[in-house]
């Protein structure tokens, strides 16, 4: 008879080869998913792989392997294959569990690797009792069958391994189905049918269109929301592909407080949020504090402490102009909001009250660099540099410096600018020096003085001294806009090649004389008596200040923002999930562990004892078989054999 198509299909689906292939295929897919970082913004991939491979990989869904159709398809096949396997094996196993094989023939038993043939001179009743007792003592259950040939004991123990097979394989099916319920398959289907469209723009929640909004009917999701202290929200965002979807919640979460506790060493110890759940159905709002590892479950929604960030801290800033010369201005700004500074837009992205970093000396301790804030200054044409500025000066080689980092691309590390702090640990002296250098009139006067004073004998013409002053001004200008590099470049353009070095030395000497006089002017303005020799601090300060001005052009900014004070408002990052699948997955897991341990540690063993009457007495054939763990069965078999033979001849 031809096998039907169905039975061929079932045989294929239930075949071991398919099962092993699927197991290996899932493993390989999982490897791919860990080698290619998942769910990153698309532009990052383009940068990393180039536009060609980006398209190829995107086509293959390699950027979200675990929710791709082909991966779900393999998983589906695994579920199918395991189901078919269980379906096909189940009847056999159930039969096997109740089957004592009491129809085994002598010849078949003799073919088993474990068998032993001996004779007893005891009377048959005695033997039967003895055998029953020994079998029972070893935990065997048995059936007894007598016919014209003799008596057969068919014994077995350990159904666990057979049942374990059913448990564990059913568990896998259950777990996979639970997992699929919690996966984003419904979203994919909704998207395919055009009911859902991913939102990629950064727009306020109230502007998100209905097609990107999921109602409270959505049974399974994982969404995030940042809520500032004192605020509330009844929605969350689901990251999906290269954008997000808005998820409505049937209640409102209000954040009363967010706390970070620290160990004495400064490392974070716990993150906690005090929440109030407001729900029209509740007679009274629910108050609850969540922390990492201690979520809150309400109405099947679980709320986790996931992250934290800034909830719109208020910063008091001092704006130091870095081009042209103006007096500094005060400015109030809010984190995550935009503020106009001249023609530039200030966008503060983050504020941190602490910066606990490993001590750069390599010793096992941490230093707190104090508060910092991070911001962008966007030019009218739309481009922007990003800055990271610390509030307090930082100790470097025993001296204090204000520190600010700048970068023009987000992907680059910050380049830091070190500005020396004056004796009151303030920025004023450095800024006074720098702004004098930027102020043409003030600088011209000092240059003229410098030119005059270097020619103390008054031998040269005023015209020449003016030329010297002009030259100094030009050098100073080059220095401020491009550092020593600009002066070197100027020399290379205007001076013959063989004189470069000589010119360089002269130019720098001239420049430094001017810079020193500018600095002395600043000191005088501070009220320092210049007739006294310079204090060591003040001389060192000049060197540090010149080093800073040398690099000022690298710090590409029109203003420097000094943080004067702040009011810290934190936001807690919550993750809100709904996963009905876990009610399948968790019991499935239990079943799996149970099944696996049963499979390995309750192996099935069978024994047969065939008694036949002979003239000399009773011949006994002991035979046994074990599914696995042969070594231990060897021992048990030997023991039973020894007990049997011993008791069979003793009487």
């Amino acid at each position, binding site marked *: 008879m031809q096998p039907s198509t169905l039975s061929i299909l079932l045989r294929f689906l239930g075949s071991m080869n398919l099962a092993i292939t699927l197991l290996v295929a899932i493993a390989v897919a999982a490897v791919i998913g860990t080698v290619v970082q998942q769910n990153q913004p698309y532009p990052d991939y383009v940068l990393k792989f180039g536009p060609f491979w980006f398209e190829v990989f995107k086509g293959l869904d390699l950027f979200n392997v675990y929710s791709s159709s082909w991966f779900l398809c393999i998983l589906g096949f695994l579920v199918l294959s395991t189901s078919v396997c269980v379906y096909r094996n189940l009847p056999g196993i159930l039969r096997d569990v109740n089957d004592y094989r009491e129809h085994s023939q002598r010849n078949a038993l003799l073919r088993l690797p474990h068998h032993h043939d001996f004779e007893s001179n005891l009377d048959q009743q005695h033997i039967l009792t003895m055998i029953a007792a020994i079998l029972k003592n070893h935990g065997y259950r048995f059936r007894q069958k007598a016919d014209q040939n003799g008596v057969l004991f068919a014994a077995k123990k350990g159904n666990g391994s057979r049942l374990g097979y059913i448990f564990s394989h059913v568990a896998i099916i259950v777990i996979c189905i639970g997992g699929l319920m919690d996966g984003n398959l419904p979203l994919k289907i909704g998207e395919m049918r055009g009911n859902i469209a991913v939102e990629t723009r950064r727009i306020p929640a109230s502007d998100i269109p209905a097609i990107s909004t999921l109602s409270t009917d959505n049974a399974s999701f994982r969404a995030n929301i940042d809520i500032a202290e004192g605020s509330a929200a009844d929605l969350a965002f689901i990251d999906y592909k290269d954008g997000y979807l808005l998820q409505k919640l049937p209640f409102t979460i209000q954040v009363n407080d967010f706390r970070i506790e620290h160990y004495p060493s400064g490392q974070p*110890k716990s993150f906690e949020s005090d929440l109030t759940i407001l729900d029209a159905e509740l007679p009274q709002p629910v108050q609850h504090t969540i922390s990492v590892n201690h979520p809150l479950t309400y109405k099947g929604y679980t709320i986790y402490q996931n992250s934290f960030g800034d909830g719109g801290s208020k910063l008091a800033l001092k704006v130091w102009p870095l081009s042209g010369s103006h007096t500094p201005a005060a400015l109030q700004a809010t984190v995550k909001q935009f503020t106009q500074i001249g023609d530039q837009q200030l966008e503060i992205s983050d504020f941190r009250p602490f910066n606990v970093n490993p001590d750069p000396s390599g010793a096992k301790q941490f230093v707190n660099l104090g508060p910092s804030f991070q911001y962008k200054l966007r030019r009218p044409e739309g481009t922007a540099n990003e800055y990271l500025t610390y509030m307090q000066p930082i100790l470097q080689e025993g001296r204090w410096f204000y520190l600010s980092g700048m970068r023009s691309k987000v992907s680059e590390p910050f380049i830091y600018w070190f500005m020396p702090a004056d004796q009151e640990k303030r920025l004023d002296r450095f800024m006074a020096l720098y702004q004098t250098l930027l102020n043409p009139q003030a600088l011209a006067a000092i240059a003229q003085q410098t030119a005059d004073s270097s020619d103390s004998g008054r031998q040269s013409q005023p015209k020449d001294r003016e030329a010297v002053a002009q030259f100094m001004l030009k050098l100073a200008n080059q220095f401020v806009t491009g550092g020593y590099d600009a002066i070197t470049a100027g020399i290379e353009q205007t001076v013959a090649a063989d004189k470069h070095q000589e010119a360089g030395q002269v130019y720098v000497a001239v420049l430094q004389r001017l810079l020193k006089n500018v600095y002395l002017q600043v000191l005088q303005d501070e009220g320092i008596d210049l007739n006294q020799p310079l204090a060591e601090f003040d001389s060192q300060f000049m060197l540090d200040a010149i080093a800073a001005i040398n690099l000022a052009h690298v710090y590409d900014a029109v203003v420097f923002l000094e943080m004067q004070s702040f009011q810290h408002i934190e936001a807690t990052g919550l993750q809100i999930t709904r996963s009905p699948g876990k009610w399948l997955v968790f019991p499935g897991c239990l079943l*799996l562990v149970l099944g696996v341990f049963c499979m390995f540690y309750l192996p099935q063993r069978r024994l047969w004892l065939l008694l036949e009457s002979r003239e000399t007495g009773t011949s006994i054939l002991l035979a046994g078989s074990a599914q696995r763990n042969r070594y231990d069965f060897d021992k048990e078999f030997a023991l039973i054999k020894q007990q049997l033979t011993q008791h069979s001849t003793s009487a």
Partner: protein
Amino acid sequence: MDNSLQSNYQQPSYFESRSAYDWVWALLVISGAGYVFANYHVLMDAYEIGILAISAPLLIWLGWRWATLQFFSLSVAALSILAISSYGGDLSRGESAFLLKYLFASQSAIMWMSALYVMATATYFGLLFSGREFVGKVASSLTWCATAMGVIGLMVRWRESYLMGADIGHIPVSNLYEVFILFSIITALLYLHYEQHYKTRSLGAFVLLVISAAIGFLLWYTFDRHADGIQPLVPALNSYWMKIHVPANFVGYGSFSLAAMIGLVYVLKSSFQTVRPQGLLQSRLPDLALLDDLMYKAIALGFAFFTLATILGALWAAEAWGGYWSWDPKETWALIVWLNYAAWLHMRLTKGCSGKPMAWWAIVGFFVTLFAFLGVNMFLSGLHSYGEL
């Protein structure tokens, strides 16, 4: 049925056949657990009390099955208590008290452990070449001593962490340094069990090789990276789940490593069978059938515990990360390891494959496991925050 006759053949039941020692052991374990409960239950949450309540009978049962473990545990417990009480309440005594400074302060104990494991490895090789039983006994004893030092080291470290500050204290399975010690101990204990049960001392040389490699890493990590300091827990690790998830995982890793080394012995022995039938490997190493069986046993044990550990991890993730499965690289690699051994078990049990190809597969499996254990931390980033290199 004739009852008097039946009682003739009656074997004592499981509990009846326990010796007096066994009962003393049980009593000691229960009183130990009782002591811990009485003194520390205020510091424990319900789950931790549950863990304690389960570990005591488990330890009793293990001791009953394996008598040497009783002696081992009692010695380790006695020495640990001695060390902990020498501390009093003062961490700085670790530098001054002789006993602590040179033997039992966790850092010293772990150095002793390292040295002893390396010596044991050398001695096991001595056994392989000399074949003298005495050498084998020395090797086994060294391994036992090393393991004891390791366990004492961890116990004392646990206490030290509390001496650093009540809120810093935590079980020492929280970073790569600590789990490497755990790995060495568990692998050694598993091996010692097989060694006693199956009389396979000659395998020691190969199994201890893996442990020595782990020790090499540990020493590099200590001296080059200064990773041996006790650090407070990051908030995500501060959970009772860690106490069971990590040890279960390392029973898995340890068994898989053991299986791989047995696989290596299998491959070596069967490759030289025809080339040098009279060689050292043929005469000294266990026969191939036993090796094959041991390899299966180790993988089965590892698979069972790895299943358990992965599930415990998933339960923990459900509490800490907002979902039982996030396809985090560490999680994903655990799945890969698990699938790999599932395929191995199917090949062997349902297709009846055995011998050299399966031995090779066990060796390859070790590298997959190694990547899940170390490679992920080194090369991939994810939510598993402990132990970056």
